[in-house]
């Protein structure tokens, strides 16, 4: 008898066999992937909003106990607040240092250069670059030419970098919290390694000594966390080691703390200027030949420069 017309029990069992195998494969795969998702330490794969996974950039907010980085670039705005007597910042050849109990707020617009945060204490800031406009305690300072700004190990109360564009970061023993997509996903670090891609946004060094990042990146990685498409963006890190301010190898300047009050300094210079000028000095602390009172007031006196420093600053021989 032709086998094709005999649909015997053995043949029928084979029909059921492939269905049983199919059922095991399909249901096993569904159960397996569902269990794998639940077994992820952070539950990240199950809680990750689809919008994040699909987007090339990730909104990230991080608060870290330290942020050892040295980055060269252009910053829209840089606000430094410091009051330590040992803190000094050089503007061209002049030195802007804290006198007495004074708190200085230096706001620099369109800073172009390198900024470094200390690897252990983010409140120790080094910067080296140039800007065309800056404000000291809210008083604007402008110049036709760019002004060099330099500081090494400047101990700040707070620092805000707006419009910062930082390279990829990778750090060990990082502690803090990170949230993505406006807090929809949060992640805590406890002395763990943390890595993220090129970052654009705001960096704040808070008075508490913590560093707050708020902006966008394209990937972030930590133990149990893997977000974003790292491979699509090329190399993930530029260096394996955290970068420190040691890269600014210029020796630290010697700072001589000034005990005198700011007003006294201005009075002394007034007397000196009286002797060398014939220009009207009514209401002026001192005057500089070849420069208007308004310019001297704006460029030197408001900044706190002495007459000699002012002459250097304005290029008077």
């Amino acid at each position, binding site marked *: *008898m*032709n*086998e*094709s*017309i*005999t*649909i*015997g*029990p*053995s*043949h*029928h069992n084979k029909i059921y066999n492939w*269905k049983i195998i*199919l*059922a095991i*494969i*399909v*249901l096993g*795969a*569904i159960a397996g*992937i*569902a269990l794998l*998702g639940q077994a992820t330490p952070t539950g990240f*794969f*199950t809680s*990750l909003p*689809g919008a994040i*996974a699909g987007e090339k950039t990730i909104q990230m907010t991080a608060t870290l106990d330290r942020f050892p980085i040295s980055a060269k670039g252009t910053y829209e705005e840089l606000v430094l607040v410091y009051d330590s007597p040992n803190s000094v910042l050089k503007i061209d050849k002049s030195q802007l240092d804290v006198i007495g109990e004074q708190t200085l707020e230096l706001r620099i617009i369109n800073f172009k250069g390198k900024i470094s945060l200390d690897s252990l204490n983010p409140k120790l800031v080094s910067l080296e670059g140039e800007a065309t406009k800056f404000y000291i305690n809210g008083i604007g300072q402008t110049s036709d030419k760019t002004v060099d700004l330099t500081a090494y190990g400047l101990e700040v109360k707070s620092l805000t970098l707006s419009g910062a564009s930082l390279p990829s970061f990778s750090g060990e023993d990082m502690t803090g919290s990170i949230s993505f997509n406006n807090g929809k996903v949060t992640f805590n670090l406890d002395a763990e390694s943390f890595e993220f891609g090129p970052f654009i946004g705001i960096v704040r060094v808070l008075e508490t000594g913590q560093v707050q990042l708020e902006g966008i990146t394209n990937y972030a990685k930590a133990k149990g966390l893997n977000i974003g498409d790292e491979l699509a963006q090329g190399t993930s890190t530029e260096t394996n080691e955290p970068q420190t301010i040691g890269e600014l190898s210029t020796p630290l300047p010697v700072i001589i703390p000034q005990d005198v009050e700011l007003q006294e300094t201005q009075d002394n210079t007034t007397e000196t200027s009286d002797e060398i000028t014939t220009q009207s000095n009514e209401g002026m602390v001192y005057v500089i030949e070849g420069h208007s009172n308004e310019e001297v007031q704006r460029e030197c006196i408001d900044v706190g420069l002495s007459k000699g420093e002012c002459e250097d600053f304005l290029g008077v021989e």
Partner: protein
Amino acid sequence: MSDKIKLKIKPSRIGFLSNYVLAGIFGGAYGGFTFFSEFNIFITILVAAGIAMLLLETEIFLMSKRWHITPEQIYFIDGVVKKNRTGIFLSTMTNVEVRQSGFERFLNVGKIELHGFQKDGPIVIPGVRHPEHVANEIEKIARGQSRAPNT
């Protein structure tokens, strides 16, 4: 052959209820998975392929298999485009049996086994609606007492 056909038997769709139930289980499991988890393209393709295989098997079987019974022979016709026909003389048959599980009895579906002297075992016609009635008709035809032209 067609003018002598006393009984035409084709499998019933309800005889493949297990395929539909399994496809439903796949769909339900996939729905639960996507509800509680993220969309997964691998699972989607696997479930779609599984359901398609089950439904296609049912439809192809229903379209391609026929059993025609004449006073002399039982013919098995197989194929959708290309058809094969094989016949066995009823005179070689010894008995007709109906097999039903409890659930098949509830649905009034079953398989008919035609036992005889075939070395490959009985002829099995699966998924037959009203199997008792059809088995009786086959017996009547075999005895040359057929009255029903079709089922």
